[in-house]
């Protein structure tokens, strides 16, 4: 389980979104099948939300291990799910494959390709960049 063979392409993470039906089942199945057929190493998490809530240390290691492709849902959600797990993703080396909107074939092709097109939303990387109290108004007094 050491980070071996890092020259072959970005790390691959697949989210099965087990605890909700928001990812089309046919897309999930087809992408996972292609991933298994390809014989490449990958990480498959039952549910990225759950991993984030648990602050799964694997997320931190993956986020800091270099280029990464994540098959899950919307890039904005994935970005902040990782950040919430203290595992901020590098916007320059992260590509999210959105299984909620992409068809199975383009999703699998993108995930397996060694080329990486970074697509995290621009902006702050971690919560520590968020505005502090001084910038806010107090709704309780309005």
């Amino acid at each position: 389980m050491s980070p071996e063979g890092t020259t072959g392409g970005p790390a691959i993470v697949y989210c099965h979104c087990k605890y909700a039906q928001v990812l089309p089942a046919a897309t999930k199945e087809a992408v996972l099948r292609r991933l298994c057929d390809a014989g490449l190493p990958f990480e498959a998490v039952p549910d990225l939300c759950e991993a984030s809530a648990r602050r799964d240390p694997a997320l931190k290691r993956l986020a800091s291990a270099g280029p990464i492709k994540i098959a899950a849902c919307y890039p904005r959600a994935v970005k902040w799910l990782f950040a919430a797990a203290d595992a901020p993703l590098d916007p320059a080396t992260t590509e999210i494959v959105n299984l909620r909107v992409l068809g199975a074939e383009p999703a699998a092709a993108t995930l397996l390709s060694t080329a990486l097109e970074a697509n995290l939303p621009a902006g702050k990387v971690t919560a520590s960049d968020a505005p502090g109290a001084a910038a806010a108004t107090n709704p309780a007094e309005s």
Partner: protein
Amino acid sequence: MALSDRTLRVVVYEGPGAIPVDGAARYAAVSALLERGFGVTRAGSGRPVAPADASPVLVLGRWDGAVPEPTGDPADGIRTRWAALDPATAADEAERARAELGAPVPGAWKPWFPVIDYDRCTNCMQCLSFCLFGVYGVDSARRIQVQNNDQCKTQCPACSRVCPEAAIMFPKYKSGPINGDVVSDSDLGREKMKIDISALLGGDVYSMLRTRSERAQSRFSKERDSDKALAERQKCLTKLAALAGDIPAEVLMSLPSPEEISRKAAEAAARARAALAPETTAPGT
């Protein structure tokens, strides 16, 4: 089991000492494991995977010889079991290893909780003021954060409705922008409109509930029939749910008593005020 307990990690191993499996068998095993809630690492060369950590591990492989003996000393935090890789029994093997290693049961908690988009968040504390379940808090720098995600009510996106910047996501929500989809100007307008509606109800849905409960309180206090009181409350809450949009009635039914709501709302507002108050400098510093 706490949310922070380490879950079982299953490694599908096909390196030296094991016979590789074909794609169909690999898919069958990985799919069965994921469906039972186990995370899977398919290790090998060519792409990196997460390095080993202190999580309990089950290594599945088609071993050349005998199945390796359990390894690792619980004292050093590494706990590993080994078993034969058979797609038909992989999930059962994982369940056995999970029980032996004392890892949490997968799926015991449905991961529904708010995720803050700090690119959009202005730290206004509306969410902290609104949530009565203690999901939100502030960090040492007085920035809003999700502190108790397991206290969030499943399927309830209510706090995202009060966020003026559409900065609160529920990734499992059905539609955007709450599900994490891009926030458009029209989305933002719509979110603001919802707040205006809630303002018409008396500031927020909880103040509306409080108002209703105050009106009903004298009647409830005289009423000895708890079933009738519950039915009345349910009626109020159902109506409230319809007005508030997509907040499930069962979530509103799980709210504390009206008196508790009033107390918790005051506490939440006080915490929000404290978080937003100007920093004070200690005398003599």
